[in-house]
């Protein structure tokens, strides 16, 4: 077969390179800064993601202060933010800027780049048995475009008119007209340019991941022998490569409307007393372009978490993942459906009702593969012999959150119900649980599980368990009651509810939520501390395969160099889920199939 030849060629060339690499003199710059080693690039993504997560999390804590008590003043806030918090009170413009940046940062910079960037880079070559990515150079560029995007986004925080403040969905005309909002002045241009850089980064990364997975698997690693992490990362990359360009085009048209006087999204507008000349555009067109990425984006965030949780649940239950093919099939189904449901974000835009009905059907169809995944995870736990490592705790938490948040999607996907719930706190509760917190849990599970491989040391377990318990309890305490606020019709993105007869009776609850949010944020700092402290001072890993796992990354040395395996790349003889088979606790993928072994 031609694929085998391809694999072998790839195998040989990368092999040769690796040997060459050993003689290279690596300076600090080439080893830690402009590195082409996928493992270093993964760590760069992770550390940048962590920094962004702290900033994005801090923003949410600050705007939660406002929601906790709209009358309170905090003098230190004025010291920190100057005229954005005049008299110690957060100004509405900056409240909206914080909300917008919180969304942008967490969705794109943390849960897309920080999550996919880290684990796709780290795990793909290690788990499929490759020396590095197909193009280490593009891989390095992918990180540096992300870095550039980060710098530009960061700089938008410091311009005089403030960063973008029209919500992370940046709907025009609000985002197109500087007269409509201070955040739509230079801050919005910076947002768009930053996102353009971000998309370039994501495309370079995604193309690389797909190419590597298709072409550079080691001998014996057929597609159906790949761990579910790799399948999930593969579909994630496909989603990103096919949908991000649409956002790019939407963003570029928006830049044109803003700066070149075009009318793609603008028509019949009078803003701040000025009659604009633009006619014939459609504000709704942008929403179609945005959500064509925006919805797959949800799965770009969620799939890696699903993949890693599947892997971690199986390893720590000491059982094969239940229904491997169904798991792959449901990932595939989710990937296809992810492209066909975007307009469920637009049920109340005046969309043609028939079109709406098609999107209802396709949206609720996603619940079927999601249900398959949940029941398969549950069956994986059933009759296992479960070890509650910190990674396992987060993987179990992931499943719990995915169930809770996934089920409320059935409310929102049904257009008639969505009429009442759209843009209320119910939506906030739904997506924070299912894609925000759940994906964070998947990411934490991944960090706790692969940290020994990344740094050759362990994270502190006690801190890890504290981190887990406070986070899961806190997450539910924050977001569960928000469903009730949403059922009361409380709209999102309100700076102050006290003038509303209908919404003002949740004051006490808002205060409670803010307090818990502060606590949960503090505990994340504990995790960050644990993370950095353990890089240098953590307990050393002495066992090449600390979790007794089957996948190939645990056949590398404890601290693998560039090229991953000092000798030949191991050959693969079986799928990665032979746990507790024939009375053996685990059989690694590179162990040949015995003559008397039973078939699975």
């Amino acid at each position, binding site marked *: 077969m031609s694929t085998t030849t391809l694999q072998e060629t790839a195998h040989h060339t990368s092999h040769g390179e690796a040997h060459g690499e050993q003689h290279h003199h690596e300076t600090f710059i080439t080893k830690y800064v402009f590195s082409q080693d996928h493992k270093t690039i993964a760590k760069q993504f992770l550390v940048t993601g962590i920094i962004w997560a702290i900033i994005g999390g801090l923003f949410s804590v600050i705007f939660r202060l406002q929601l906790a008590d709209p009358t309170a003043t905090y003098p230190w806030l004025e010291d920190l933010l100057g005229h954005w918090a005049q008299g110690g009170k957060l100004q509405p413009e900056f409240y*909206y800027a914080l909300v917008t940046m919180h969304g942008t940062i967490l969705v794109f910079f943390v849960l897309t780049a920080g999550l996919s960037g880290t684990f796709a880079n780290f795990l793909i070559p290690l788990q499929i048995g490759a020396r590095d990515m197909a193009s280490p150079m593009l891989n390095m560029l992918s990180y540096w475009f992300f870095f550039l995007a980060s710098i530009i986004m960061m700089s938008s925080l410091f311009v005089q008119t403030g960063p973008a403040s*029209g919500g992370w969905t940046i*709907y025009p*005309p*609000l985002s197109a*007209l500087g007269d*409509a909002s*201070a955040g739509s002045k230079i801050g919005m241009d910076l947002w768009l340019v930053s996102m353009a850089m971000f998309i370039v980064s994501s495309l370079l990364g995604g193309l690389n991941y797909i190419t590597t997975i298709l072409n550079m698997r080691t001998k014996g690693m057929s597609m159906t022998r790949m761990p579910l992490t790799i399948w999930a990362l593969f579909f994630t990359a496909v989603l990103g490569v096919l949908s991000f360009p649409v956002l790019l085009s939407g963003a570029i048209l928006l830049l044109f409307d803003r700066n070149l006087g075009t009318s793609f999204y603008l028509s*019949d*507008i*009078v*803003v701040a*007393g000025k*009659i604009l000349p633009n006619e014939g555009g*459609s*504000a709704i067109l942008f929403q179609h372009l945005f959500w064509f990425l925006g919805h797959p984006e949800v799965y770009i965030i969620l799939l890696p978490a699903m993949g890693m949780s599947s892997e971690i649940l199986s390893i720590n239950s*000491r*059982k094969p*993942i*239940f*229904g*491997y093919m169904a798991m792959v099939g449901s990932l595939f189904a989710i990937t296809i459906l992810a492209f066909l449901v975007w307009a469920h974000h637009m049920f109340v835009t*005046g969309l043609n*009702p028939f079109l*709406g*009905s098609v999107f209802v059907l396709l949206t*609720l169809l996603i619940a079927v593969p999601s249900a398959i995944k949940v029941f398969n995870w*549950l069956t994986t*736990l*059933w009759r296992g*012999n*479960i*070890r*509650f490592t910190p990674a396992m*705790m987060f993987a*179990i938490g992931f499943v*719990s959150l995915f*169930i809770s948040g996934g*089920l409320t999607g*059935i*409310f929102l996907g049904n257009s*008639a*119900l969505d009429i*009442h719930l759209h843009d*209320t706190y119910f939506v906030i509760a739904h997506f924070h649980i299912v894609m925000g917190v759940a994906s964070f849990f998947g990411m934490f599970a991944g960090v706790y599980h692969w940290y020994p491989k990344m740094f050759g040391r362990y994270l*502190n*377990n*006690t*801190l890890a368990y504290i981190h887990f318990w406070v986070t899961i309890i806190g997450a539910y305490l924050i977001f569960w009651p928000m469903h*009730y*606020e949403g059922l009361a019709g409380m709209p999102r*993105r309100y*700076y102050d509810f006290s*003038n*509303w007869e209908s919404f003002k009776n*949740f004051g006490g609850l808002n205060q409670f939520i803010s307090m818990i949010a502060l606590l949960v944020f503090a505990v994340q700092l504990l995790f960050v*501390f644990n993370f950095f402290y353990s890089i240098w001072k953590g*307990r050393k890993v002495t066992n090449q395969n600390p979790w007794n796992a089957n996948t190939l990354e645990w056949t590398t040395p404890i601290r693998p160099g560039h090229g991953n395996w000092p000798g030949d790349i191991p050959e693969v003889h079986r799928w990665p889920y032979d746990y507790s088979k*024939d009375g053996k606790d685990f059989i690694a993928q590179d162990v040949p199939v015995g003559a008397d072994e039973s078939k*699975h």
Partner: protein
Amino acid sequence: MKDLFLVAIVVMIFVVIFQIAKASEYVSVLKGEEKTRKQNNKINGFLLICFLILGLIGAWYCNELYYGKTLFPQGAASVEGEKIDLMLYITIGVTGTVFVITQILLFWFAFKYQEQEGKKAFYFPHNNKLELLWTTVPAIFLTVLVVFGLKYWFKMTSDAPRDAVVVEITGHQFAWDMRYPGKDGKLGKKNYKLYNTPSGNTLAVDFEDPESWDDLHTTEMHLPVGKPVKLVINAMDVIHDVGLSHFRMKMDAVPGIPTTMWFTPKYTTEEMKARTGNPNFVYEISCDQMCGKGHFSMRGVIVVESEADYNKWLASQKPEYYTLYPEKDPAKPIQATDTTKAVTAPMAQVMSGK
């Protein structure tokens, strides 16, 4: 100083937690890591089952606390909204059952099958029958929900009944304006380029069109109870959204693309005061689409009243045409000023929430 003190305390707590964590790591090395791991396993298994039980109790308790504050005990204030409430209950029933079952299985399995000495996990890689079962059962439930949902969706998005009262509502940063078609039942044409010609024409109505001459421009919406209402929705500047949570209705206001929605108010404002037991009750129009810094203050008020009161209110309004072109007013100028005063005074009271 107080702030500094607070920061110091937080840092102290961090340091203490960290020291405990560090110490526990040393202890585990002394005691044997395998032994500590098993101990941790037992503790976490126990905590997981506690979490399940406390979590389910918490969910029930949360419902006790907050269900009364949602809009559901008082019922939907529109005929169509009642269907949404029914759908909501059906959906809560189905998803609630699934939620409880799956969460119990998850945490119970985790607890029950935690690592035990000398026990082996069961090698169980797949089972087609089981997988088929949990593909088809969710599919059937979802089909039911989709059928229900789409039936109501098509009903609600269908054309408004012919006898519907038509009101135009226009959003701009950061308020709502209403326009009533007047006696001829037709709204005059609009052209956004005519904004402020003549001065005060904030809705950009084309007064060349005779149909606009009897149109009323108000800042409050009055609706007759029990009659279908069709809203024609516009926006001047950016996207807004007419959110009517009591009626369970919502529709975007998009500049350049008028939208519509219709519903039938079921209770007057006075009746709702009695139903909710809140003497200050008002139907509020919230802007539900982020529209700028004043988004949270973009509040409108709807007064639902008997048809007689509604007609009386309508008759007391003066067409905007006559306000903007006083010379065209058939009534004598001096009388006109009087009428305006008489109308604006009670309006101002209502607007300030009295």
